[in-house]
């Protein structure tokens, strides 16, 4: 049953990618059907789990032994527990919705069948990632989603920028993948296994240094996949991919794989406080980094991407808090999956109606033309800034509380950062909202100025709006549903463990502070973009703005330190290769060739010399045999 979950989209990918043009007409229906089938199977399994006692909600399905060697067991086995079940529902649910949305969004693309094939491939790999019962199989899924992400970012490969972005995402992810593979090797060295059960249960008998090393390597992996500082630079460029891809892979699911990895490996981090601290630091830094970058972006998708980075920063921060935060990290992950996917689909709908224009300075006043998009996007907006009662409010508030509850100076710093982040989030999301849906209709002037026909904004078809509506419903009620009666906490606690935190100030005070920060953020944004007209060309801006537009110099940093440095390293390695390695290799080859030429001359064609060689050989053989006896 668990295997079927993965098999359905995998079958879809195989059929769509192998089937060829014959399936062009029905390809998107096949893809959507199989994704939904997976979702239905997920629901059945969920119902089954709910029917059991909380302690018995872990199902392990052993499929087959892949490489059974003594001392090295690589099994294909799946583990379905509350944590993976949560992910399965998120992945297949949001995935199915986005499949439906893509039917409309990709309607005019002649490679639509291939697109759905890749999407199904992604679903299969992502499900494998979260269902794997050992780190090796997880790695397989990890690489699989990386591949799918690469293929989908570069889907419009005729655009050089898309091809470059795909390559960049792939390369940056390789760095993280190295971390994961090293972590798995270390695990095998330390525990003699890489299945979850033996690894996580033996943590107590292991030295802290080794655990810290494993933890840091896992963190590196998580940074790569989840676009956390310092491996964050690929996510913004990844927006070159079609918008449904951005919604599914680069907002709702794949980029949260890092959080999953950390939470799944919680036992390791709990026993390695240094690694755990590193996780919180990465989370806190990324949280602010993403938020600051998001304030300066004029490209609607890049603004949302920066916001994704920042929100995942929240999740990382929570995951770094240990048992205090695991549950809330996952809860925020799920609610974020709803509202961020909804926001991206809304952005896609706007672009769909605006001839693929992404510059928000060329939008404005769209609420009258796209009412459904406006409402669903608006609800997503309220959810992400944490408007009281909506889902983002519940999940983010819990994280901020947990950060304060960490205690000591650390707690104050982390809590402060989280609060500041909430304010900045409110600012940049309000900015996006105002620039897109309110204010003057700047797209008219732009079109006149450039002499082009004015875009005619229009609402998207039902096949696109229905998924947006469903996601908006999730964004509104998800948080409340999870939080009332601590439903989510009780569900997940058996897997991740939970310890109640004690914030230095009352919980209500934290909530109040969060709401105040939120209001300040909204007010500032309104003052800047709501009251005054938005200039059609971006003003020069302050130093910070300019830096944020350049993604806080992330690419410049990478270029100077890594690319230049890499080039120097390559050059010196090439030099060594040419002189030393090639010298040895060519020398060996030349000497073997020379030897060959000389030995060939022995073969002179005369039977008499052949006979002599045989005679000599026989004499040697006899002599050597006698000698062996003598020795």
């Amino acid at each position: 049953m668990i295997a079927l979950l993965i098999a359905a989209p995998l079958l879809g990918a195989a059929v769509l990618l192998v089937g060829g043009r014959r399936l062009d007409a029905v390809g998107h229906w096949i893809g959507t059907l199989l994704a939904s089938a997976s979702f239905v199977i997920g629901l059945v399994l969920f119902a089954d789990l709910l029917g059991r006692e909380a302690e018995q909600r872990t199902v392990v399905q052993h499929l087959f032994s892949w490489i059974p060697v003594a001392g090295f067991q690589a099994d294909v086995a799946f583990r379905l527990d509350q944590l993976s079940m949560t992910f399965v529902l998120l992945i297949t649910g949001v995935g199915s919705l986005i499949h439906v949305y893509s039917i409309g969004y990709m309607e005019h693309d002649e490679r639509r069948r291939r697109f759905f094939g890749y999407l199904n491939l992604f679903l299969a790999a992502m499900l494998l990632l979260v269902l794997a019962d050992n780190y090796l199989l997880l790695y397989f899924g990890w690489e699989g989603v990386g591949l799918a992400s690469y293929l989908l970012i570069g889907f419009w490969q005729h655009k050089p920028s898309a091809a470059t972005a795909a390559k960049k995402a792939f390369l940056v992810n390789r760095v993280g993948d190295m971390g994961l593979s090293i972590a798995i090797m270390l695990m095998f060295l330390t525990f003699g296994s890489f299945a979850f059960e033996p690894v996580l249960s033996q943590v107590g008998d292991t030295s802290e240094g080794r655990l810290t090393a494993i933890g840091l390597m896992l963190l590196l992996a998580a940074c790569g996949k989840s676009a956390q500082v310092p491996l964050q630079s690929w996510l913004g460029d990844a927006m070159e991919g079609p918008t449904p891809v951005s919604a599914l892979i680069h907002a709702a699911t794949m980029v949260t794989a890092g959080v999953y990895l950390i939470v799944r490996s919680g036992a390791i981090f709990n026993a390695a406080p240094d690694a755990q601290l590193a996780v919180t630091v990465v989370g806190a830094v990324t949280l602010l980094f993403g938020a600051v970058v998001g304030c300066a972006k004029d490209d609607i998708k890049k603004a949302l991407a920066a916001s994704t980075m920042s929100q995942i920063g929240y999740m990382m921060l929570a995951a770094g808090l240990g048992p205090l935060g695991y549950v809330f990290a996952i809860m925020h992950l799920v609610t974020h999956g709803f509202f961020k996917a909804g926001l991206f689909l809304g952005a896609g709908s706007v672009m769909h109606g605006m001839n693929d224009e992404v510059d928000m300075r060329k939008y404005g006043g769209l609420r009258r033309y796209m009412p459904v998009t406006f409402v669903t996007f608006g609800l997503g907006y309220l959810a992400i800034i944490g408007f009281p009662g909506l889902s983002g409010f519940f999940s983010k508030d819990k994280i901020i509380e947990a950060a304060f509850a960490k205690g000591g100076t650390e707690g104050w710093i982390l809590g402060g950062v989280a609060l500041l982040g909430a304010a900045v989030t409110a600012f940049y999301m309000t900015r996006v909202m105002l620039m897109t849906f309110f204010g003057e209709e700047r797209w008219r002037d732009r079109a006149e100025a450039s002499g082009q026909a004015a875009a005619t904004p229009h609402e998207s078809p039902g096949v696109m709006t229905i998924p947006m509506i469903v996601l908006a419903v999730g964004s509104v009620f998800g948080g409340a549903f999870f939080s009332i009666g601590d439903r989510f906490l009780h569900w997940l606690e058996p897997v991740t463990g939970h310890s109640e935190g004690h914030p230095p100030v009352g919980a209500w005070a934290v909530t109040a502070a969060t709401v105040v920060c939120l209001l300040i953020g909204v007010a500032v944004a309104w003052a800047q973009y709501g009251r005054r007209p938005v200039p059609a060309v971006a003003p020069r801006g302050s130093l910070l703005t300019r830096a944020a537009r350049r993604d806080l110099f992330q690419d410049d940093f990478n270029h100077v330190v890594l690319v230049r440095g890499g080039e120097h390293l390559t050059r010196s390695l090439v030099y060594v290769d040419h002189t030393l390695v090639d010298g040895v290799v060519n020398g060996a080859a030349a000497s073997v060739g020379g030897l060959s030429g000389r030995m060939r001359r022995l073969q002179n064609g005369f039977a008499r010399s052949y006979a002599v060689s045989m005679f000599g050989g026989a004499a040697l053989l006899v002599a050597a045999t006698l000698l062996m006896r003598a020795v």
Partner: protein
Amino acid sequence: MSTAAVHSLWTIAADPIPRIDAPKIEYGQLSPVLIVVGAAIVGMLIEAFVPRRARYYAQVFVSVVALCASFAAVVALAAQGYGTTKAHIAAMGAVAVDGPALFLQGTILLAALVGLFTFAERRLDPAAHGNRVDSFAAQASSVPGSDSEKAAVKAGLTTTEVFPLLLFAVAGLLVFPAANDLLALFVALEVLSLPLYLLCALARRRRLMSQEAAVKYFLLGAFASAFTLFGIALLYGYAGSVSYAAIAQVVDGNVPHITPALANTMGNDALLLIGAAMVVMGLLFKVGAVPFHMWTPDVYQGAPTPVTGFMAAATKVAAFGALLRLLYVVLPGMRWDWRPVMWAVAIVTMLVGAIVAITQTDIKRLLAYSSIAHAGFILAGVIATSRDGVSSVLFYLAAYSFVTIGAFAVVTLVRDAGGEATHLSGWAGLGRRSPLVAAVFAVFLLAFAGIPLTSGFTGKFAVFRAAAEGGAVPLVVIGVIASAVAAFFYIRVIVLMFFSEPRPEGPTVAVPSPLTMAAIAVGVVATVVLGVAPQYFLDLANQAGVFVR
């Protein structure tokens, strides 16, 4: 002379002459050999009595039927358990019927059948005066370039005697790995060698070169046979018997009745060591191990290509079978003496074969050196002296023989005005003009190189593993190095075929009859199946890995 000895002479002479019992022959168990010999004799009668026009068809028919029937007999014997539980020494101790013998006989028969297809190919050479001709001389007795040769060609003569000759050689090859006494071994050696000498001389094109190759092969083969025979004499002198079992008993020192004559010689290890070394040398000559390999390139190049393919495959199978039986049945008691020597031979063979092949410019000579290198790899398995060693060698031989026949069959297809274009420069760009043929040849080359998913990899892996488990790790290391060197020249041919510009007036690829196609197809299928799903055949070889004693 002591009085006791004189007395014993008198008493022996005084006894009534003992009755000689008629030897007991298990015809059923020897049927694979008997069928082939019978068919060979029928083939001679066909030459004598069937009209010239019909001979070719009659010969091909008889040969195919005989080889298939013989193979069926082998399978039937194996199915009755002669390969495992009922293993048995037949014909008064002369011929063993056991796992290795049946496995190798089956391999030889299949190789012979595939080889026969290439012998019977008549579409490649352009028809001479309206007559379809094969790879063999019109009339073997006519002097090359003479008027009688021209007349023979004009008359459309063909040498259909090749088919009975092939069958005689097969008969010898079948007995060779099964021979369980030294005389049977020697007789088998001669029965297989003499027809092969003749076959080598029968090329239709480049007849002088072919005859030269045959003469060299004959002279050197006779030389090696002389060593073998002398070695047999010494071993007989040592043990007082030519039977493997009896010699083994003497070597191990557990003889039930020590006669006075035996008591005098059995302590004389020099006889044993020199004799064993000389017999082994004769076998090493046949497998083409260094330093007894010098005939290989010249003969492989000169012989008609179908003969080369058959010879390279089947002779190697039979000779390694005989070598295994000799070392495992007769001489296990002195393995501490022969193992270091065989180590040295294996190492030198692998290295010389691989290194000299690098500078070859003729595809047939290249394959000859490749076969020398492979002989070295197989020797590594022989040295393991374990059941795994035996079964890995059996598997390797089966795998190697199909690759070899297939590869030489491809060589017959690439032709220019002078016949086969064996110079490598002609093969440049073959992949552009005939992608299928080049791809098939590339498969064979990859198998030779031991690339995974081909039979060559499975075989090499099995052999090296057996050798390493037998403690011969340095040998395995050198073997892997030699494989790397060898991979160079195999891959170079692939590069030449696919990545070089074709020459404007280079050779063309002839379209063969279904016979050669079948030979090549069998080769490809065997190569891929034994590479991708080898388990069944490895099990088979493993079951067959025990010699009867």
